[in-house]
């Protein structure tokens, strides 16, 4: 079962009642554009509990970021609309809240880190100003108190000589340091849930590892729930407890991380893992998934993965398989989840 971190209480993350910290149920998001309506998230469901890390893995355009934006309420509307589902935070539906109430949760209880910290930080204000603003606006602190906290936070995210750097502008930091600033802002108010949207994609590999390590440390220490959005299964392996794999705006498989690696129950997941570079993979060719991800304007009939699937049958071309429970705590959206991987 799920790895239990020290701060985790004995709540089963999968109990669909109000005990779950963040519970996304059948979320549907549409983008209505001139060229047509795109379903960017379709029946997306996942749960995150205290101290737990959920990784959402998928290719570009698979809808993983959109579901996070829906949680934060920052989908550009128009063209984006949340057309269905619920997002329960501590049992209350965020989608039914007044904007004002929702804004108090944003940044405070649920926070987010963006992919490219250079563009996610305001270039005309110093990083200290931006971090201290969190305390001034949400906690009513004075400017000097806010700056003091900003320095503490910058120390916490391990920015060297924070006291001096607090008055520097974002462009004066390196990529990794900027992402640390972004993390400092996001965790400033000790959120219950932190969403990290590809937090390491814009960074080089060694810095990636440091940032992931930092996130894991912070999570261990504060007990927040972490949603890690990534296209990189390799990043996931070290930090996640659970993984949800997305394909063409739908979740196709959810599993405990070790279970997933041991035995994928969806051909797409299997394909992703085959295309990973492994230490024992000397000399041979990588085997990528054939074909390319579908255009969301023209999602294939039946199972959206069928044109790329090695195990495709007639039924796959006509019937879209629902996400169903294969084993306890494991779901897959494949007609042949139990069968295909046994050979």
């Amino acid at each position, binding site marked *: 079962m799920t790895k239990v971190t020290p701060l985790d209480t004995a709540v089963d993350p999968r109990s669909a009642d109000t005990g779950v910290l963040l519970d996304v149920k059948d979320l549907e998001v549409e983008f209505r554009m001139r060229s047509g309506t795109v379903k960017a998230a379709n029946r997306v469901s996942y749960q995150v509990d205290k101290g737990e890390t959920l990784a959402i893995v998928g290719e570009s355009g698979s809808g993983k970021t959109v579901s996070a934006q829906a949680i934060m309420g920052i989908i550009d509307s128009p063209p984006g609309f949340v057309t269905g589902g619920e997002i329960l935070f501590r049992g209350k539906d965020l989608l039914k809240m007044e904007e004002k109430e929702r804004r108090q949760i944003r940044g405070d209880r649920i926070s987010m880190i963006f992919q490219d910290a250079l563009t*996610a930080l305001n*270039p005309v204000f110093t990083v200290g100003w931006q971090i201290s603003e*969190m305390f001034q606006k949400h906690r009513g602190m004075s400017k000097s108190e806010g700056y003091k906290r900003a320095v503490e936070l910058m120390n916490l995210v*391990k920015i060297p000589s924070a006291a001096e750097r607090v008055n520097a502008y974002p462009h004066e930091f390196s990529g990794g340091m900027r992402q640390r600033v972004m993390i400092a802002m996001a965790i400033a108010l000790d959120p219950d849930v932190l969403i990290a949207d590809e937090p390491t994609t814009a960074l080089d590999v060694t810095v990636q590892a440091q940032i992931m390590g930092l996130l894991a440390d912070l999570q261990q220490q504060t*007990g927040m729930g972490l949603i890690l959005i990534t296209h990189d299964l390799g990043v996931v392996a070290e930090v996640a407890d659970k993984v949800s794999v997305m394909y063409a705006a739908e979740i196709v498989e959810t599993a405990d991380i070790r279970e997933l690696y041991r035995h994928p129950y969806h051909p797409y997941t299997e394909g992703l893992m085959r295309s990973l570079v492994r230490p024992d993979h000397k000399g041979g060719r990588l085997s990528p998934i054939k074909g390319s991800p579908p255009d969301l304007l023209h999602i294939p009939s039946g199972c959206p993965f069928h044109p790329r699937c090695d195990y495709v049958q007639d039924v796959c071309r006509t019937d879209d398989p629902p996400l169903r429970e294969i084993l306890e705590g494991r779901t897959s959206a494949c007609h042949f989840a139990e069968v295909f991987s046994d050979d």
Partner: protein
Amino acid sequence: MTDTTNKTPAEVLAPDVVTPEVVPPQAPTQDKPASLWSDAWKELRRKPGFIISALLVILMVVMAAFPTLFTSVDPRDCSLIDALQTPSAEHRFGTDLQGCDYYARTIWGARASVSIGLIVTFFSTIIAVALGSLSGYKGGWLDSTLSRFTDIMFAIPLILGALVILNALAGSRGVLQVSAVLIAFGWPTMMRLMRSSVLSVKELDFIDAARALGASDWRIITRHVLANGITPVVVYATITVGVIISAEASLSFLNVGLQLPAISWGLMINTAQNRILAFPHLLFFPGLFLSMTVFAFILMGDALRDALDPKLR
């Protein structure tokens, strides 16, 4: 949460050991929290272009506010006997057709020019920033309506529009009337600049990030959109002061601006126009002051643009 509800992570945890990640020793740091404008000010103080233009602007503004500091001669105390003298010890800039002291008139002429320049720029900028940021940030039908209205106003050339209206106002053209007409035709350019600036800033990630971290619409507009988008407008507005001053002079020269007995550089050039070849000082002195003022504001606009872009530092 449990015991950590009211505490920040920094309180819960002692700051850890700093990782030896390489960070180049950066920019000199100051103890006081810095802002964009205070940093820009530090930058500007060292720029010769800014110092020269600032001194000129201050000189012109002081001249406009307190002309008696520069001359004790009454510009309206004229005697026809002294008409059309070339510069001499008694009349440093010579005298005009009416025998008025040309130096005194040139000094007093600053008042009308500078005040029209500042009033028009101030109010056009306010209109432009308000409409432009609203239009750009909100989008939709509001943007369409405001933008089309702006386009209609924009289609009328400043001088032509002002000429037509001011011509109809014959007999009652003072500083206020001329300013009002120039404001009416002067704001559209800046509004379009503001709107496009807001449109490009609005798409940037930090706007989404600010919203995700709980900022309100008002705060996003003022702190994030305006702070990043207003730079080109501030620069343009500074230049506009110069442009408006020369527009006022052009209108006065064309006989549709200020009217005698008002004193302005444009009017002085207008009155002199038939005698410019014979008495070039009638053109030279008001022309010199006019172009120095316009030059000062344009130079200042350039210096501001450089200083307000943090990436150029």
